[in-house]
């Protein structure tokens, strides 16, 4: 900072006026500043007594990141389910078709297949051919 003799009149006057305006603060403002200061000091004491609280935001962020990574890396998400099925197991769509159709009769739904069977002289599915 400038020493007093190096201060110009503008600097000296500015500082005097500013100091006077600080001294002239009203009681309510002083009181609110005092309360704010007490709250800040209490914060230091709280942080000192519970140092783990300082790491709380970082721990929360790390937990969220960990959960995200686990979910992202978890198998079976967005992949073909048959890729993880045991070898020799029926395809999922076959199982679904069998499960949903109570009366499984290809010939009644596909006349072309019936014609093909007759041409080859093979017995039909109901054993009449």
């Amino acid at each position, binding site marked *: 900072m400038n020493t007093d003799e190096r201060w110009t009149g*503008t600097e000296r006057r500015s500082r005097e006026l500013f100091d006077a305006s600080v001294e002239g603060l009203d009681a309510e403002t002083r009181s609110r500043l005092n309360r704010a200061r007490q709250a800040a000091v209490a914060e*230091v004491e709280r*942080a*000192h007594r519970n140092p783990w609280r300082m790491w709380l935001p970082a721990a929360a962020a790390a937990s969220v990141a960990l959960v995200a990574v686990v979910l992202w890396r978890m198998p079976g998400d967005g992949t073909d389910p048959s890729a993880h099925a045991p070898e020799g197991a029926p395809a999922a769509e076959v199982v679904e078709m069998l499960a949903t159709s109570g009366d499984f009769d290809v010939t009644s739904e596909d006349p072309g297949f019936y014609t093909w069977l007759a041409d080859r002289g093979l017995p039909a599915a109901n054993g009449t051919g």
Partner: protein
Amino acid sequence: MIGSASLVFATLARLADVDAPDPEKTLLDSATSLEKFLAGVERRAFRIAQMAVRDRDDALDIVQGAMLRLARNYGQRPSAEWKPLFYRILYNGIRDCQRRRTVRSRIFGFLPGSFSEDDDVPGDPFERVADPGPDPVRQLMAGEAMQRLEAALARLPTRQQQVFVLRCLEGLDVAETAAAMGCAEGSVKTHYFRALQTLRAKLGEVW
């Protein structure tokens, strides 16, 4: 033999006492130092914030936030570091407040019958009159001179305002001002020189 062993033991015990400070005492010292520091700067910080944002409640919020942030994040740091850190936090708070106001005025500026900053305050003509003191005339003159200074400061570029307030009004040295503003010491000197020149031209040597 026993005597020398007990002497060694006593010396070690004393060294252990020196090396392991009492945590409660450390806490008390830290809290006391911080309270003393904040008590010394809080009113000046409030006036700086008030000059920048021109609103008492906003200025109080800014100072309160700066105090809490200093205590929470830097309370355990050496007290010699607090001053530049505090003013840096304070100016960040001022900047955030000014940005919020800009955004708010842009949003509400489009609405018909939008309010201005002064509209929500009931018009009390005596509210801004200075309290009568022992020498009202002198106080009034000082108040008017301060208003002229504030108006001249408000017309300066932001960095020049900051450097003038921190260097001249707050008495920070060049290195502390540079640390508080996050710039080089050379920039501090340049900004201060320009700010002083402009203020002198606008206000006169002694106004």
